[in-house]
């Protein structure tokens, strides 16, 4: 992030996050020429990949030849900063990453990991995609989703409210309602 402050206006970063585990098929897909080409086509200039415990190492690139600037790291305590500075987030389907991104209203493509045994994760991503809060993809469809990406269709996510749950718990325990 240090060498780009001089042309910050034109900087449009795609941040890819796999969370605490590994998701090699996603990292491999975003590192493919096809996907990088599609992102460039959509006007993105930088690609930052949080690769977690994965074993596939993406190729770094300084983007001198007009290609995407690519950087990666394994883990960071400041994922929130990366999310905030991103123009597009491509995330694994963990609810933590999904809601952290939706809360700051960043365009989000969730990629479902089909290698997971108990794959309930796709439920949430598909439900939120149906409500147009995000886009849902699989590693093999990610390129298509990026090519047909239309950010104008996104419906902003209205954050939930824990108060009604707390109220029912209080009522059950005989605490005053307010």
């Amino acid at each position: 992030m240090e060498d780009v402050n001089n042309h910050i206006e034109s900087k449009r970063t795609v941040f890819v996050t796999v969370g605490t585990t590994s998701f090699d098929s996603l990292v491999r897909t975003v590192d493919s020429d096809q996907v990088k080409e599609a992102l460039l086509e959509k006007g993105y200039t930088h690609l930052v990949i949080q690769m977690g415990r994965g074993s596939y190492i993406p190729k770094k690139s300084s983007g001198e030849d007009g290609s995407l600037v690519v950087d990666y790291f394994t883990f960071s305590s400041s994922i929130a900063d990366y999310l905030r500075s991103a123009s597009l987030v491509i995330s694994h389907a963990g609810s933590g990453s999904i809601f952290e991104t939706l809360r700051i209203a960043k365009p989000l493509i969730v990629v479902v990991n089909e290698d997971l045994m108990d794959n309930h994760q796709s439920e949430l991503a598909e439900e939120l995609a149906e409500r147009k809060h995000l886009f849902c993809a699989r590693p093999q469809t990610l390129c298509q989703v990026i090519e047909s990406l239309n950010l104008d269709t996104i419906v902003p996510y209205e954050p939930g409210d824990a108060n009604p749950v707390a109220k029912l718990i209080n009522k059950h325990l005989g605490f005053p309602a307010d």
Partner: protein
Amino acid sequence: MVEFVLIFLVITTTLLVVRVVYVISQSSKPIRNRSQKHLSTLVVLGSGGHTAEMINLLSVMQKDWFAPRYYIAAATDNMSLQKARVFEGILDYKGADGTQFMQIYRSREVGQSYITSVGTTLLALGHALWLMVKIRPHVILCNGPGTCIPICAIAFIFKVLGIRWSYIFYVESIARVKRLSLTGLLLYKLHMADQLFVQWPQLQKQYPRAHYVGRLM
């Protein structure tokens, strides 16, 4: 002699069944006469998204009603207790009002074989029992995943034996849109939770005893 043993067994079994039925029928009924001003509260933290949801719920709850608070997270999960400490503003082992942070062995890690998980499950149960004897909470807040099953099972046994009556609240993860998790399903089917919340209306339709009052995230 054999008959005596048999009669004894029949009587104890009958009493136990009656007690279990009583406990189940009394759970999910609200407290009428609460004598305590504060209810000691055990918060079972899941991991990543589960912990984030729990913290969201805790942030709107009255801290002085639910005190002291005991936070439990899996021994392999370093992040959750840290998040709870930040939430509580306590960086030490213990807070001023007795709030504590503890780790618990997990019965099964992701990818662990079923054979070795028999041993680890026993270890996890023993550890959970030890913690529950020490804490004996009035309120248990949990939202999965599996870490909370031994805790809730022991809490239920404590209720049956009259050791401690705990009120158990379970909030199903927002990630569950169409079906309950295994943990949620167990607590629902066995009537172990006083109140079980889901975060999607279509899920509540499938499980009519569950509550739906909106999302935590």
